[in-house]
């Protein structure tokens, strides 16, 4: 299920509160500043810092 444009518009990184890069094709939302990847589970963004994947 794709994320709604409105949800994409309001979501921010929970750590730095900055803008995010959406990569729905791989089911992830990236914060390039914090180097974190948040996963999308069945259309629900999991914006939890302790569950985010560190980006290389």
């Amino acid at each position, binding site marked *: 299920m794709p994320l709604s444009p409105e949800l994409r518009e309001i979501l921010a990184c929970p750590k730095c*509160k900055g803008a995010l890069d959406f990569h729905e094709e791989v089911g992830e939302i990236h914060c390039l500043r914090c180097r974190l990847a948040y996963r999308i589970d069945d259309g629900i963004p999991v914006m939890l810092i302790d569950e985010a994947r560190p980006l290389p």
Partner: protein
Amino acid sequence: MAKARVRAAFSRGAAAYDGSTAVQALVRARVEALAAKAAPRARTLLDVGAGTGRLLADLLAARPGLRCVAVDLAPGMCAATRRAAPASLVAAADAEELPFADAGFDLVVSSSTFQWLPRLEPALLECARVLRPGGRLVVALFAERTLRELREAWSAAAGAAAPDRLHRFFTRGEVATAFDRAGFHSVQLEEAVHVERHADPADLLRALKRIGAQGATPRPGGLGGRRVLLDALGRYRSAHPGPNGVPATWHVVYAVASR
């Protein structure tokens, strides 16, 4: 209570949550009334700890134009929220680390959630941050006297020197202080006490477990923990003789505040 434990417990509880406690419905109705009064013209709303989404569904039914956003720590609850209120935008998030920019909401609500936090202030600061200036926060949380019968029975069974293995709920004073420290003004508090009846203490524990709130139940740990728990349940039962089962108190503090 560790966040991972809260998350897992409430995901498991999502299916059972609604039918389990009548108190939840009373709290929800009061929060809805307080929110309607505090922010009748709000256009954007955030529900922190949306749970099964029932509050959000009620708020949306009353105000169809409201733009609703919901977060919950438990992904299982997020799925339930989306089913109950399909028009809302849902994300899994921590109340202490909200995934939104500053000042985006007219109204933030949170019902039956903040009592599980180790401290209130970080979450209240986050609520203040995402509220626009002049925005309103409406919170309901279970407070100090919640499950006092269970606490009394446990204390009697474990002895005064035993470690306190029960969840400690905030006092009204702690709630007031946390709102002040988070920078809210015009804080209005009110309290309500609801007494539920359960067939026996074990029935209460099962109900708590069913809704994922086993954080409120004693954690039998160490040598003799099981024996103390059984002793406590026996004392709970015998302290409340009679044909109508045992009482379980729920003490609710409601807060309405301005950013």
